[in-house]
Structure formats: C-alpha cells, structure tokens
C-alpha cells in the first residue's frame, strides 16, 4: 500500500462513490420497467383468479392475462356515498397511497376500527364482472392488521352480494408455518360458497375455532380454523366484519342489492 495523504483518501472515496452510484442507478433505471410489469402481472393474476374468467388450472400467457385485466370493468367507488362512481380513473388510482393521504382518507373511530387500520381511504378500486349483460361477480379489496403484519387481499362475491366466490390474501408477513396459512390456496378454497350475511343482513361469517362441522346451521358462515394461529384467524374475521359492516362496503352492497347496477354501454368490460 502506498503512502497515505488526505487528498488521496478523498479522491479514492469520490471515485468509488461515482463509479458505484452510476452502476446502481443504471441497474435501477434499466430494470424498472420489468419490475413494474411484474407487479402489474401479479395484481392482475390475483384479481382475475377471483373473477371466474380464467380457465381452470391452466397457465395463461402474460399478454392474455393483461388483456383480460384491462377489459375488466374497474371502478373507483366512493365508500361513504355508497356510490359505484367517483372522479378517479381506476387505471391510475392508487388505493394504498390514498389510505395514507389525509385528503382522500378518513380516520376510523377506535370503537369501529375492527380491522386495526387507523385510517381508511374513502375510495377503493373494485372490479365488476359481467356475463351476458348481467353482473356475475364483484371483486373487492380488503385489508386488516394481522398478528405481525397488514394482511392485504381481495374477496369476490356472487351477484347476490352475499355468497363468497373466492378470496385471496396476496400480501402478509404472519408467522411462518402458522399464520402464513392465510396465504395457502388450500385454505382459501374453503371460502368458496360461504355466505357473509344471514337473512336479516347481519354479518355472521367468521373463521371457526376448529374444523367446520358440515351440515350444522353455522357451517354456511364458517371456514376452518388456522391451526395454531388464533390471532391471525381472529384478525381475518375482524377485517371481514369491518369491511362488510356499516363502515365498509355494507351500504354500497345494500344499495346494489336494491338496485342492481346495469352493464354500461360504452365502457371496457364487455368482452365477447
């Protein structure tokens, strides 16, 4: 090693910094489009799997997946107005960002905050699935605090706005081997066909404390417990209670039940 001088040290650090930062910046800039495309593909796949539009079991080409996703009838709904329409464009609206934006979100009073959210966006992007001119499913985003992490998911309802057509939890960091079973497709399949509300409109759906007893009166409103993950399971129950209660999608679903939405004429979403 050569002799040391402050100038030399400074120059060495400067050169290292410039060279390394150029390499890092270049990799970030060049790979960004691919990463964004991956995110879009993942989101499209999660949502489409709940619409019933994908062929069962088969893998779909990326382009087909994106085309299908773009053809979905996406709406940014106004939760508090119980309205299917708002001024936002569903293709650019950032629902997660909105939940943190004081202009676009509302604080939740602690007594009502079953899902542990603190604030929630007044607007949410939902997806309407049309079949032969009639509404067949609606896909709604849900989220809530689990044991360690925020659980993010989508739930799909049949046109009666009560029967669950599918659920996916696509982001979570619960305990490996226990709470992370929320992300298991095997468990999520058990939700299909269950009901959220009873005849009086009360939310009965919950994660059971053990295996569901088939044939019991409650079986329609229950899915099997997550073994060893009571906190995560209770969080799932609580977040559904919140999102389908009076402070979540409840009013909108009631409005849609009374006056079913009509398929729009000139919107995307009516692929042949």
């Amino acid at each position: 090693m050569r002799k040391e001088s402050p100038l030399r040290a400074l120059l060495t650090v400067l050169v290292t910094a410039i060279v390394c930062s150029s390499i890092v910046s270049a990799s970030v800039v060049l790979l960004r489009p691919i990463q964004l495309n991956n995110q879009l593909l993942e989101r499209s796949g999660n949502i489409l799997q709940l619409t019933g539009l994908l062929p069962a079991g088969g893998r779909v080409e990326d382009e087909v997946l994106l085309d299908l996703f773009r053809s979905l009838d996406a709406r940014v709904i106004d939760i508090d107005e119980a309205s299917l329409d708002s001024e936002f464009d569903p293709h650019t609206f950032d629902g997660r960002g909105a939940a943190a934006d004081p202009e676009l979100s509302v604080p939740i009073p602690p007594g009502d905050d079953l899902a542990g959210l603190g604030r929630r966006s007044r607007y949410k992007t939902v997806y309407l699935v049309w079949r032969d001119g009639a509404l067949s499913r609606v896909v709604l985003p849900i989220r809530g605090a689990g044991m360690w992490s925020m659980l993010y998911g989508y739930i799909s309802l049949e046109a009666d706005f009560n029967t669950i057509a599918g659920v996916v939890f696509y982001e979570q960091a619960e305990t490996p081997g226990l709470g992370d079973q929320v992300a298991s497709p095997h468990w999520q399949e058990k939700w299909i066909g269950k009901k959220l509300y009873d005849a009086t409109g009360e939310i009965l759906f919950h994660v059971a404390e053990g295996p569901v007893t088939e044939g019991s009166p409650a079986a329609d409103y229950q899915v099997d417990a997550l073994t060893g993950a009571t906190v995560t399971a209770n969080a799932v129950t609580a977040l559904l209670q919140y999102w389908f209660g009076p402070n979540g999608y409840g009013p909108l679903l009631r409005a849609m039940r009374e006056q079913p939405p009509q398929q729009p004429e000139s919107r995307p979403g009516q692929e042949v």
Partner: protein
Amino acid sequence: MTVKHPLTAPLIKENPVTLSVLGICSALAITNSLTSSLIMSVALTTVLVVSNVTISLVRNLLPPSVRLIVQITVIASAVTVIDQFLKAYLPEAASRLTVYVALIITNCIVLGRAEACAMKENVGTSILDALGNGFGYSLILIIVAFTRELLGRGSLMGYQIFEPASQGGWFPENALVMLAPSAFFIIGVLVWAIRVWIPEQCEKPDFEPMPLPKREER
C-alpha cells in the same frame, strides 16, 4: 497440515458458518424454504465473487484509512444490483426473500473475505476464495433448508414429498421447524458433528470450571 486450498478449505474445514459462525442472520431467516435458500446462496456467492475481485484489483490503490468505506460501498452496490435483478426476473422469490437480499450487505462473510483475503491476495486466489466461502455458506444453508422444509411442510422446493396431515395425509407438519430457532438447533448439531470429526476446530475453554467441593465439605 497440508497447504490450505482457497477453494476447498472453506467448505467444511474453515466453513464460514460453522467455524466462524458468520452469516447466521440469513441462515435463520430464509432456510424454511429450499428454493429461497438456493437463491440466497447464489446471490451471496455472486456478491462475494464481485466484491473479492473488485477489491483485489484495487487493493494496492486503496489508502488504508478509507479501505473499509470503499469495501462496503463496493459490496453495497453489488448487493443492490443483484436485488434489482431478482426483483425483475424472479419476482416471486424476491418477494419471499424480502429484506434478506439487501441484508447481504451486512453479512460478515462478505466483508470478512474482502478484508482477510482480497486485500492481500491476487485476483485468481480471491476468486477461488470467494467461491469456496460462497459454497461453504451454501452447503450449510442447503442442509438446514432441506431439513426444515421437509420436516416442516413435508415438501422440497415446493413439491409435496409427504402428504401433510392438514390436507388429509399422514405426515404431521412440525411447526417448530418452520420457526427461526430451529435453524439454530440444526446449525448447532452441524457444528457439533463437524467438531467431533475435526477436533482441531474446538476452541480452548476460556477458563477451567471450578471443581465441585466434595460432598462432606458442602
């Protein structure tokens, strides 16, 4: 003892995980899945090679007072670039590895080899040393992950080997094995086994335990 070979010595004899107990953080965190561990192994080995080569090339130009800064900058850049590549081309794996790819920066094996080998040796030896240490780390990770995924989920690399009890099969999944402490147990057993085989690895005790007083003196 024969002359140490930079490629083979770190596999078991001087394994960075079991002898120096480095790189434990990621060995605990991501070994509940064999796939994640394989990707982590490749990522760490690549970072090691890149940092060792770079530092070995410039080792004679580095003023000693700033050499650690330069080493860490080189390592951090290599890690960031690899993280970006993983996010672009293996997004599912990257989302499962979460922060642990970025945490390779703080993996002591990388800085340790830069200081201990690349600052002194030529490029050829540095590459062999990086590969050797990378493979040594990978070996331990793969053994731990193999055990954990098989016992914890009954699967390997996501393929179901045993039908788990939760889905109607016979294999009872072991939830403890899926939690981080179990990696400690497995690494501990490995360290023990290797030190039985190669007793030179055992450290001398720091002190002699005080002899117990005789029964009648108690």
